[in-house]
C-alpha cells in the first residue's frame, strides 16, 4: 500500500515536472496536473496539500535521484579523474534523458527562492546531491588528487560550469549535444581542481 502511494506520488511529480517545463511553474495549476493524470483534483490533494509542498517534494526527489547516481560513482574504486568524468556524464545524461529535472533545478528551484524559503532552507532539499559532491571532493583531496581549497570555490566551479552548459543547451545555443562536450569539460574541471 505504501509502495503504491509512493509510486503514485512519483507519477504526480513526474507529470508536474513535465508541465512545469512546458507551461512554466506559475502557469501550471494543481487542476492541470490532476487532469494530465486523469485524477480528480480532490484526490491530488491526498498526495500533495499544496503546489508549494509539491514543489519542495520535487526538488528533494531530484536530489535523491542524482545523489543515488553520484553515490554509485563515489563508491567505485577508481581515480578521481575518472570519477570527475563520470559525474559529468551522469549529469549530462540526466539533462538529456530527463531535461525537465535539471530544468526544474536551474529554472525553478534556483530562481524562485520564495517558494522554497520554508522547509528548504540552505541546502536541505538538495542534501543528498550536495553530500555526494562533498564526498567526491573530500576523497579527492584525501588521496592527493585534488587540491585543498574552499569548498564553495570548488563547488561553484564544478556545478556552475555544468549548470551553465545545460542552460545553454536548453536555450538551443549549443551547436553540439551535451555528450560532445564531456571530454573538454572533464579535462577543464579536473585541471582546475587537481594538484597536478
Amino acid at each position: 500500500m505504501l509502495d503504491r502511494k509512493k509510486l503514485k506520488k512519483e507519477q504526480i511529480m513526474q507529470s508536474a515536472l513535465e508541465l512545469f517545463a512546458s507551461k512554466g511553474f506559475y502557469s501550471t495549476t494543481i487542476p492541470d496536473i490532476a487532469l494530465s493524470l486523469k485524477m480528480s483534483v480532490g484526490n491530488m490533494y491526498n498526495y500533495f496539500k499544496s503546489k508549494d509542498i509539491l514543489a519542495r517534494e520535487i526538488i528533494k526527489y531530484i536530489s535523491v535521484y542524482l545523489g543515488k547516481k553520484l553515490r554509485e560513482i563515489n563508491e567505485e574504486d577508481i581515480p578521481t579523474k575518472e570519477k570527475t568524468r563520470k559525474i559529468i556524464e551522469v549529469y549530462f545524461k540526466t539533462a538529456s534523458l530527463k531535461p525537465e529535472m535539471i530544468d526544474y533545478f536551474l529554472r525553478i528551484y534556483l530562481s524562485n527562492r520564495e517558494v522554497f524559503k520554508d522547509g528548504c532552507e540552505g541546502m536541505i532539499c538538495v542534501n543528498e546531491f550536495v553530500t555526494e559532491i562533498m564526498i567526491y571532493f573530500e576523497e579527492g583531496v584525501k588521496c592527493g588528487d585534488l587540491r585543498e581549497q574552499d569548498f564553495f570555490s570548488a563547488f561553484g566551479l564544478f556545478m556552475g560550469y555544468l549548470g551553465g552548459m545545460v542552460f545553454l543547451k536548453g536555450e538551443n545555443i549549443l551547436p553540439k549535444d551535451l555528450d560532445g562536450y564531456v571530454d573538454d569539460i572533464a579535462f577543464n574541471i579536473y585541471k582546475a581542481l587537481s594538484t597536478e
Partner: protein
Amino acid sequence: MKNKMRVLWLSAIACNGNTHSFLNYPFLEQFLDDFEFIYHPVIDSHYTLEDIVSKEIPCDILLIEGAISKEFQRADVSVVDIIEKYSKIVQKIVTVGTCATFGGIFRESGYSETSGLHFDQDKPSERFHDLLDKTISVSGCPVHPEVLVNTLYAIKKSAALKLDNFLRPKEFYAYTIHNGCTRNEYFEYKVDNHQFGELEGCMFYDHGCQAPFTHGSCNKILWNEVNSKTRAGLSCMGCTEPTFPKQNLFSTKKNMAIPENLPVGVGKRVYLTLAGISKAFKIDRLEKKLFDD
C-alpha cells in the same frame, strides 16, 4: 596500624606532569591514609630509589609514569629491569598517563624503541605481553588525579573494572570529552565563530577541538573541580588517545570543508546530512555574546 596498600611510583621517560597532577588531588591526606608509597619521586617515602632497585621491597601496585625504553635507567638500572622485577610481585600495574600507556610525546626522545608499556601508539607491543592481565591504563597528559585515585581504590576494593581495548577503565574512558561540554549547543547548530578564551562557539569546526573523538571524562570530572579545557575556551588536544600529540593542535584538518576526523562512530554521510541541516538555520541566540553588556 591500618593495612595500607603499598604503591611504587616509578618514573620512566617523563616530564613528571602526572606526579604534579596527582598532587592536586583534593583529598590527598585521606588517600595517604589508605595507600603508602614505598617510593614516589616527590612525596616522602620509606625507601630510596637505590633501595628500590637494589632490593625487592614488598609492593602491591606498580605505577609507571613516562615512556619506556630499555636504554633508560633509574639509579643505574634499566627501567625495563625494574618493571620486570616488581611486576612479578605486585597485584596490579597501572600505566599512569599517555606516555606510559602509548609512548606519548617521549616516543620522540632519543632513546631507542621508546613506547608505552603495552602499546606503541595504537599498535600492541609484545615486550610485556605476559603482564597484560595485570595492567590497567589511565591515559591522559596528564591523567586526571581523580581518575588515577579512583582506579587505585577500585584495585584496593577488588572491584572489577571493565576495560576498553587499551586497558582503560570504561568508567572513565567510555565517554568522549564532548560528553558534558558546555558548548554542545554550538556544536549542534554548527556555530563555529569561536575566539580562544571566550565562552561562545564550538571549537570542533575550525579550532582543532578533538573532544568528539577523544575518550575521557574531562567534562564529567572537572579539573581542579571547576573547569575543563573546552569550558575555559581551549580546544581538546586529544591527550588521552594513542595519537597524542598530533601537530597543528589549534586548527581542524579538513579536506575541502569536511573535517578529517569525525565524531566517534558517525559516518561521513550522516555527518554531512546533519551538518547541512544545522548550517541552514541561523539561531540568533547562539550568534550573540552570552553576556551582552
